[in-house]
């Protein structure tokens, strides 16, 4: 059986830490990066006798996530205890949601090379985070080589929303697109920092393969420990190949959890650490059910900003952008907003978009500048676009002007004027320059007339040189052709 005969079936579980000021059940702050065990209290430490109190803001953020993923919002849901022993879990149970999640039955549309695809979202439920363990004393920082472990409960009790996709994803590219779209949405609605390095966004992947054309699901493995979208993509690709190889040998895929190993670029079995997990779920008796009235749920929906998908579609329609360009500009809300201000003051939104995605993006990356650091506003960039469209300057000159705009915040019109850069588009002047160049390069003329059409570029270049780059290159090209063909 060839690799191409298998179809991957992928589902993604994303844990998103909510950026509420305080934890899910107590008043401890949720700030990242402080000294261990300085953001803890009897409640989040699970000291004997303590009780949880629900953070209303966390419920609000969770409902907003549900709305933004087109979910049904449960008017009655509850918290449940998920019981298991691990030192990062102070109560030896995690308060989560089992059979009545807050949000269910939604979807997320992704855009790949193949087009748009709808990925189902099974559920998005609220739960508390566990603490963090540091395995010390060994070489690799991993449990198996350590002498002892240290527990930091700062993270314990931070609200999480677990977003579970349907197994609708069929490739690593789709998985990457799903994660990118999801992150974009979460940032737009401002419920999370979505920082994978800090752990405010985490992803596990469930991967299985089956013969193309069959319906039955193959055995799936769960891949963990992928700290970036790039690693998710790599890990999925590796796992698909690994499972295909297993099946090709006539063996069976073992249902297990596997870790992504960044040094060896492989997934590795966690089997030795696996226990049969019976979480003995039961309704959390220390909390009351979550009953949301329709007005509240509606109000939260109305408070949502325009989401990336809708904005992208609107940009395509209103500004004539391609799906790809609209996608790039709407990936981040600030960028989209910046563009839209510009699109309203320029006569050429598409041109404006191209400058943003091209030279502007390049300079921002190289100089490590963000939108808020820019020395110019949209009006000035629009000025540049207009100058190019009016053919006052050519594209090479425009790049020069852009650098002045970016580095000094200079007005493009001013720069052109001061530097006398206005493009020469006077046919008589250009003809004169062309005649001179043709006279100085008779061999090239002979080559051209002999069939080497490509040398026209050389001649254009010579004319541009002679004019200090100011000649209108289009016109130069036309006039040279006319003269040579005649």
């Amino acid at each position, binding site marked *: 059986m060839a690799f191409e005969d298998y179809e991957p079936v992928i589902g993604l579980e994303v844990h998103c830490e909510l950026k509420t000021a305080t934890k899910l059940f107590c008043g401890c702050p949720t700030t990242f990066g402080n000294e261990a065990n300085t953001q803890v209290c009897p409640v989040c430490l699970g000291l004997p*006798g303590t*009780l949880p109190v629900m953070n209303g803001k966390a419920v609000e953020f969770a409902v907003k996530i549900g709305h933004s993923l087109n979910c049904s919002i449960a008017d009655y849901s509850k918290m449940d205890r998920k019981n298991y*022993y691990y030192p990062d879990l102070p109560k030896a149970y995690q308060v989560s949601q089992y059979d009545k999640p807050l949000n269910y039955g939604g979807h997320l549309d992704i855009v790949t090379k193949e087009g748009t695809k709808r990925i189902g979202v099974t559920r998005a439920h609220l739960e508390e985070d566990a603490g963090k363990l540091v395995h010390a004393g060994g070489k690799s920082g991993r449990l198996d080589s350590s002498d002892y472990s240290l527990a930091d409960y700062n993270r314990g009790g931070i609200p999480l929303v677990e977003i579970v996709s349907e197994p609708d994803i069929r490739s690593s590219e789709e998985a990457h697109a799903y994660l990118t779209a999801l992150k974009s949405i979460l940032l737009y609605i401002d419920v999370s920092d979505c920082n994978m390095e800090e752990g405010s966004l985490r992803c596990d992947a469930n991967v299985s393969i089956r013969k193309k054309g069959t319906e039955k699901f193959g055995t799936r493995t769960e891949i963990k420990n992928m700290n970036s979208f790039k690693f998710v993509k790599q890990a999925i690709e590796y796992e698909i190949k690994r499972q295909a190889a297993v099946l090709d040998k006539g063996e069976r895929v073992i249902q297990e959890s596997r870790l992504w190993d960044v040094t060896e670029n492989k997934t590795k079995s966690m089997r030795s650490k696996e226990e049969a997990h019976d979480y003995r779920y*039961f309704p959390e*008796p220390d909390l009351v059910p979550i009953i949301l009235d329709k007005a509240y749920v509606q109000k939260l929906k109305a408070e949502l900003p325009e989401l990336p998908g809708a904005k992208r579609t609107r940009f395509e329609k209103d500004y004539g952008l391609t799906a790809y360009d609209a996608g790039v500009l709407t990936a981040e809300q600030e960028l989209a907003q910046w563009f839209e201000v510009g699109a309203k003051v320029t006569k050429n939104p598409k041109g404006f978009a191209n400058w943003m995605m091209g030279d502007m993006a390049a300079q921002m990356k190289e100089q490590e500048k963000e939108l808020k650091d820019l020395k110019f506003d949209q009006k000035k960039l629009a000025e540049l676009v207009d100058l190019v469209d009016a053919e006052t300057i050519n594209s090479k000159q425009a790049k020069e002007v852009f650098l002045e705009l970016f580095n000094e915040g200079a007005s493009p019109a001013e720069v052109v004027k001061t530097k006398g850069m206005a493009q020469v588009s006077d046919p008589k002047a250009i003809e004169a320059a062309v005649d001179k160049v043709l006279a100085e390069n008779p061999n090239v003329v002979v080559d051209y007339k002999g069939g080497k059409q490509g040398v026209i570029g050389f001649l254009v270049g010579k004319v541009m040189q002679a004019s200090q780059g100011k000649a209108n290159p289009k016109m130069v090209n036309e006039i040279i052709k006319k003269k040579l063909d005649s």
Partner: protein
Amino acid sequence: MELYQKTIHEIAADLKAKKVSSVELTKATMAHLKAVEPKVQSFITVTEEAALAQAAEADKRLASGNDVTPLTGVPLGIKDLLCTKGVQTTCASKMLEGFKPPYNATVVERLNAAGAIMVGKTNMDEFAMGSSTESSYYQKTKNPWNLSCVPGGSSGGSASCVSADQAFASLGSDTGGSIRQPAALCGIVGLKPTYGRVSRYGLIAFASSLDQIGPMTKDVEDCALMMNAIAGHDPKDSTSADVAVPDYTTEMKKSIKGLKIGIPKEFFPEGMNPEVTEATKKAIEQLKSLGAEVHEISLPHSPYSLAAYYVLAPSEASSNLARYDGVRYGLRVPGENIVEMYSKTRAAGFGPEVKRRIMLGTYALSSGYYDAYYLKALKVRRLIKQDYDQAFAKVDIIVTPTVPNPAFKFGEKTDNPLTMYLEDIFTISINIAGLPALSLPCGISKTDLPIGLQMIGKPFDEATLLKAAYAYEQSTDWHKRKPTLKES
């Protein structure tokens, strides 16, 4: 009569009238406490120094006349599963030996705010699981009425210290009868409030949907005074009810003429101890003579209460006690790896009854059994509650015996756990239904052991319960009888 033999309302009058200071009172009470403690063993921890410091503060309040409550300057006992800041809180278990909580339970904060004095932490069945206080890791508490008999449980120490005048009152907790049964066995008043009436914040949990904290006192008026201090909504407890707290002494002294009393036929089974039956019937007649109307009612699902309870409570306990794993506080027995540390710690830290219930509960919640046991028990719970709702459409309170027998001897029921579980047969359905109920003395057996009468009320209607109890109490003198601390 000695100072420490008085009731709270009597001593409060003395304190207010400056006939005695809190320091004098506390010293006298403490001296008596220590004198009888070798016989009774009510306390795991005695906080003499702290008590005297609290008494000095109370005296300042009493002197100024500002902010004085009936509890100001009055020595009380606190069951050792209520968190007391900086003071050892053990739940009578080896697992929490030496554990000093960094915070106070809400009820303790409220008593402190009222100016009450804490004399010590009282003994109990380990983690509140039991009906005799015999399962305590630390010591056996004796019944002041007969030192070879149990005081009941799990709030055995809270009951005995009040009965033996080592404190004016105490706080206990009740999950299946743990306030009412020891109150009955020790001849005192014990009230389990409506679920949600008193904050559980700081109560070390046994069964979250059943636990409640309540007062154990020498008489009904004291019980009302304690309720005034501790009842009420607590934002730290999501299950505490936002229902206004009346002054429980207001209704208490009113007539019970026309009060409708229900007697459930299921609570007088075959083979009941005849002395208990007799005392209960006499008490009902007494209530009739005070103007109450007696109606027979039925609680048809009550025979299933014990079974439902012994699924629900251990299930919740198996989860609540999972946190005792040796990682952060309490006992730790080291191991080669984490699983070994967990197993060794829990094997060493818990006694047999606690282990038994954790295993029962784990099983009842496990995959493949959840529906048949836990879910089924939740459904039976609703049926039991419905029985009470229907009964309370017709009557104002329900009266039953508290326990089938007076106090039993040490070791009498420890061989077979089920015989111990049957102690709770009359008290247990009340916790399942979340109702308020109290026990007060209604007789003395031929062998000089107290017999208790249980009164059950409508949700948040502790006032009517206290009224009926007060009327009965004041028309008898059971509450004036004191134990002699004799050996069998």
